[in-house]
């Protein structure tokens, strides 16, 4: 028995991560065009505070939800299972401190499980303490019924990933995956001659926000006549990323690296650095380690972002809703700037941890930088 179990364990290695992702909805030309337009649109709202800005000006009247404080804000969180969510969750807790009308923030962590999140939402509703429910859904389809159930009882605010219902007060998110993909790929198209070799590095298949980044980026690269030499999954693993890039470099020249997420960008840069190759055009993300490497080596690079300042917005929306003030709805679309050479210096802070996401919108908050792990 022990032997069989152990063999199964060993064979499991071969099967882990085996996903045959079908991606029927991840290549939508209309959404591609819409997001492309949003990238250059001028946002409404207070200047310099992108977490309060919005790109579409349809508002929802929330007078029906008006009530007296102090408010109990309940938050069903998909997980705090990656550095981006760690930064975002810190943003949200600090944002709560800016609102004296909030008496309590009740946070339940679904730890990346749909089932747990559905149960969490049920528990929060049954508890009866919540004035408003914020949900960051783990997956779209699975959480939709739970959110619909909650909508019947209290105002619901969704952010990050969406749900298939328009019952919530609003759905807060930045421009989106296509926009992210376009920003990086367009930079490559502008800086590499047609026919140049581009290696696309992806984390894993089947995740909606990552699939749209890829399809958005791929379209732009193909339209620019660039040669995509490969699209590889790195599992977000530094060692694997570095190995993959080394293997591609052994096979031929690479003029640009496009990535759907930047956590392993420095490992990819190091593959060029350690092998003594010319630095290609790089697409990273807004992590501090990549920004610092970019500056240190004088890379030709861009850092698109999925701004973590979007974690501040649900609290703002919740308070406005409970005060009966109008909020952008059905979607509150936040601007999604990319970090470029021109703005690089303003985002670098060597006192912050390597995977601190620079577009946190948190520099002006009271406990910055200590709450985010900075010195």
């Amino acid at each position, binding site marked *: 028995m*022990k*032997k069989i*179990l*152990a*063999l199964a*364990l*060993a*064979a*499991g*290695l*071969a*099967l*882990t*991560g*085996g996903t*045959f992702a079908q991606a029927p909805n991840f290549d939508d030309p209309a959404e591609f065009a819409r997001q492309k337009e949003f990238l250059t649109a001028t946002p409404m709202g207070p200047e310099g505070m992108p977490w309060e800005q919005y790109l579409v000006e349809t508002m929802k009247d929330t007078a029906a939800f008006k009530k007296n404080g102090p408010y109990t804000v309940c938050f069903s969180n998909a997980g*705090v*299972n*990656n*550095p981006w*969510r*760690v*930064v975002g969750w810190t943003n949200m807790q600090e944002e709560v401190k800016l609102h004296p009308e909030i008496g309590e923030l009740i946070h339940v962590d679904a730890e990346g499980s749909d089932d747990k999140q559905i149960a969490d939402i049920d528990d929060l509703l049954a508890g009866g303490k919540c004035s408003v429910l914020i949900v960051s859904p783990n997956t779209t389809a699975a959480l939709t019924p739970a959110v619909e159930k909650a909508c019947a009882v209290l105002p619901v605010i969704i952010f990050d990933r969406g749900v298939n219902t328009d019952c919530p007060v609003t759905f807060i998110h930045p421009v989106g995956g296509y926009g992210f993909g376009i920003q990086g790929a367009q930079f490559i198209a502008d800086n590499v001659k047609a026919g140049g070799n581009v290696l696309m590095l992806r984390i894993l*298949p089947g995740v909606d926000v990552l699939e749209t980044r890829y399809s958005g980026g791929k379209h732009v690269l193909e339209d620019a006549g660039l040669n995509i030499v*490969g699209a*590889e*999954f790195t599992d*977000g*693993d*530094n*060692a694997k*990323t*570095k*190995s*993959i890039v*080394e*293997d*591609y470099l*052994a*096979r031929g020249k690479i003029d640009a690296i496009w990535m759907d997420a930047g*956590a*392993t960008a*420095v*490992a990819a840069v*190091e593959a060029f650095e*350690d*092998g003594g190759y010319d630095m290609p055009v790089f697409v990273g993300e807004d992590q501090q*380690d990549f920004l610092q490497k970019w500056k240190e080596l004088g890379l030709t690079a861009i850092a698109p972002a999925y701004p973590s300042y979007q974690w501040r917005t649900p609290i703002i929306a919740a308070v406005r809703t409970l005060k009966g003030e109008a909020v952008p709805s059905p979607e509150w679309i936040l601007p999604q700037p990319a970090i470029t050479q021109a703005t690089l210096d303003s985002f670098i802070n060597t006192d912050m*941890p*390597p*995977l*601190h996401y620079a577009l946190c919108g948190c520099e002006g908050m009271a406990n910055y930088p200590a709450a985010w*792990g900075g010195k």
Partner: protein
Amino acid sequence: MTDNTLPQADRQKRQLPQVNPVYFVLAALIVAIILQNPAFVEPTGYMNFLKRAAPLAILAAGQVYVIVSGGFDLSVGSVITLVVVGSSMLLNNDPNATWWVIAVMFGIGIGVGLINGLVVCYLKVPSLIATLGMMITLNGVAFMWSGGAPRGYLADSFRFFGRYNFTDLPVIRILPVAVIVLLVLGYALYWLMHRTNLGRMIHAIGDNPRAANLAGVPINRVRIIAFIVSSLSAVAAGIMLGGFAGVSTDVGIGYELQAITAAVLGGALLLGGRGSVPATIAGALTLSAIFTLLNFLGLPQPVRQIVQGLILIAAVAIAVQRRKHTGR
């Protein structure tokens, strides 16, 4: 037991010398890689390959101690994560701290191995469960320590072992430090397993604990030492992986299974009593070669996973066949 302890008479009956099939599998894969990418025969090609495979090879060579003694060590992946995360926290961007941080990490390794061994020996918890519990615990410790995101960088002096290459050398031109570490630790682990009394006792308790006990082998002490060797090899692998690729909070995920797979590829018996350090290292190189070959082939990801799975099953099947022929 091992080949070198087989009775002489048994060996003389054979027509062909017994060579572990993992070496043939590895050779075939390397030929395939060279056909795909002739640049692999250049020093930078194969040295980069060895550098990348070194952490897994060392980890697997440690794991085989526990496997031969009749157990499993599933905690090694989490030890790697803890070493990388913990080192980045302790180093605190101070290159002068490298040496004492490395010492602390090996100290943690001894502690983890000791606890694993004590739990297995005295609390009688099966090693699969004991080390699984340790894995979950250590992942939690690493998460708590770092808050879920890396909090610092690894100094260049710390990354020396996994990242630095000596260049401009005669003949081989380039020599990664990781390859030197692999040679030194690989030989040390080989010597300890196959040239000392301790190695024979590890084989004995994995083969037949009762017989070993009756023969006077201090079972518990030997088993605990096997777990400590495995944990220490995980610390070494962690230092090299952190050096190779920098800080990440999930660096060790999956390494425990890869290490066990490498040992099985090298012909180790999962029930204990049999296993070889050099063949396990060859097994680790085989796993890395499969990965590299599939990169070079440029197949789409799903096809690659299918091929990877099939190659693995085939390789393990060959290893098992060989065991049948030798009557074990």
